[in-house]
């Protein structure tokens, strides 16, 4: 009924009116759709208003002092502004924070610069190694900079370093594991399967606890790596096992004719994998890789259980300041936005890669 009514209107109305009606049809075409639309609009308006009221209209923003928040019913942004340094950089010595900030800029710049496929040359690997070395120097000090032990590292740089290092080191390891699992050599294959299945069978939390609590009991002090390094190793092997299984899916989907053709041309095993098989396999599994990598970005927050100060633990530490009311919602929203920005921009990047590949091959 409603449909015929709108059709009648559409026929009698002018062309502008008609296209407007066509566009509205999905929302108001049937009585049920119309009712749903109205209810949803009402809900959106209601909660939108509440959010606006809380986050902006009634919010305490300036000046960034504890008194600003007193008596306000809205968000206490002045806390986030006043404590942003502590949330972002944790217990890193305040006088040296510029170094931690520079580390974040350096990592993000390198990531952005590596985004274009045209930049993917062997020299990019060197850029990454150089970036990692400079990052460790800036964070840890030495060679003219004041030394800062890893126990004082904290906040966004810790999250970024753990993510980039765990995936940067875990990805090549994952490639080797995935190839190993498909190898013709029984020893290599068995070891790869054993490693992947063991790590996949364990929760990340238990890996982190083993790395931070159990290892010191077994290893003499001299052989024991730093707590930060131990957590990083745990994250890396976890990432490697998961990424390896994602990659294996891609490797299995490449027809055997591809490696036969490559080998018939005299390309050996490694060149065949590197030039023919992996480029195709990785492109196929981009959606699954994206998913795993985004999970890994957020997994880094679990290091707080072993006493490392990532973004979330830094936020919690900042909240414990007795001089302030503890506006945890605002703080975690702020931290959540940072995680969202990281994960979302990565997802968009993966989307761009997928589309650029599809266009290329027509």
């Amino acid at each position, binding site marked *: 009924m409603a449909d015929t009514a709108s059709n009648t209107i559409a026929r009698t109305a002018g062309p502008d009116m008609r296209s407007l009606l066509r566009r509205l049809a999905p929302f108001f075409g049937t009585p049920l759709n119309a009712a749903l639309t109205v209810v949803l609009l009402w809900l959106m308006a209601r909660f939108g208003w509440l959010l606006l009221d809380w986050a902006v209209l009634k919010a305490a923003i300036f000046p960034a002092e504890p008194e600003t928040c007193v008596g306000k019913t809205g968000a206490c942004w002045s806390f986030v502004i006043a404590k942003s340094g502590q949330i972002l950089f944790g217990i890193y010595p305040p006088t040296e924070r510029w170094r931690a900030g520079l580390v974040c800029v350096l990592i993000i710049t390198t990531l952005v610069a590596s985004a274009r496929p045209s930049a993917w040359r062997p020299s990019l690997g060197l850029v990454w190694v150089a970036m990692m070395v400079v990052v460790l120097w800036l964070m840890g000090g030495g060679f003219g900079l004041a030394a800062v032990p890893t126990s004082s590292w904290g906040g966004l740089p810790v999250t970024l370093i753990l993510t980039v290092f765990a995936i940067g080191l875990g990805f090549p390891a994952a490639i080797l594991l995935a190839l190993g699992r498909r190898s013709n050599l029984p020893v290599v294959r068995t070891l790869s399967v054993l490693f992947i299945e063991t790590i996949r069978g364990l929760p990340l939390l238990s890996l982190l606890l083993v790395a931070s609590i159990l290892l010191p009991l077994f290893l003499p002090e001299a052989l024991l790596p730093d707590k930060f390094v131990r957590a990083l190793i745990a994250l890396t092997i976890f990432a490697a096992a998961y990424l390896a299984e994602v990659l294996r899916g891609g490797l299995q989907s490449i027809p055997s004719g591809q490696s036969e*053709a*490559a080998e018939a041309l005299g390309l050996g095993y490694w060149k065949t994998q590197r030039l023919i098989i992996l480029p195709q396999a990785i492109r196929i599994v981009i959606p699954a890789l994206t998913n795993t990598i985004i999970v890994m970005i957020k997994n880094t927050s679990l290091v707080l259980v072993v006493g490392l100060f990532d973004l979330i633990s830094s936020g919690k530490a900042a909240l414990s300041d007795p001089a302030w009311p503890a506006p945890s919602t605002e703080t975690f929203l702020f931290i959540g936005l940072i995680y969202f920005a990281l994960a979302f921009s990565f997802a968009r990047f993966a989307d761009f890669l997928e589309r650029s590949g599809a266009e290329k091959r027509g």
Partner: protein
Amino acid sequence: MKNVERQTDRGAAIKIENLGKSFGDFQALRNVTLTVAQGERIVICGPSGSGKSTLIRTINRLEQHQTGRIVVEGTELTNDLKGIEKIRSEVGMVFQHFNLFPHLTVLENCTLAPIWVRKLPREEAKETAMHFLRKVRIPEQAGKYPGQLSGGQQQRVAIARALCMRPRIMLFDEPTSALDPEMIKEVLDTIIGLANEGMTMVCVTHEMGFAQAVADRVVFMDGGQIVEENVPAAFFSSPRNERTKLFLSQILGQ
């Protein structure tokens, strides 16, 4: 007998002796002996499952043989990896399903192995590639991706890709079986062109007209064995073995 003399005169390109191979319980090749002289053109035919593809794939060791021996251009095929890669770079292969690399352009398909295996400078590899793409008459497609070409064009690129390695022997494994009928001729013409230049080639095919036109010898296989081999005229006009007769009558519709 004349044939045998010519082989010894010109030296063997491929020498296969008492070759045997099985996949589990299935005996794919039994006691196959075949010698291919330099510049000789061999066509292998036979019903499906007769072992002809397996045989041609053992020549560049895509399949490993279990008994007997294969000597290609004076090098015996063993587990020695260096020897295998050397032979593979001298033996070009064209597959039924083309097996072009879909993530690379036509030109990159052709320059990849010369650059990475022959260590040719990029520019020189490009020139070689364009030379052979012109030869298979599709230089204008150099910048396209394989997925944008027709089956016949793809197979011609595959031939050019193999030729870019400047192989001494070409193997064709049913090069026209996956093609639409109207594209078979363009691929066969390309192969005939090569044959006329004196390239040593072994071709598994059901195209009997092609066999008649270019083959020096036709080899008929059945049940993993060579049942009959002869010069084309005699092979087609007076097949000796019953199985050959049956096969020819089926495939030629006589």
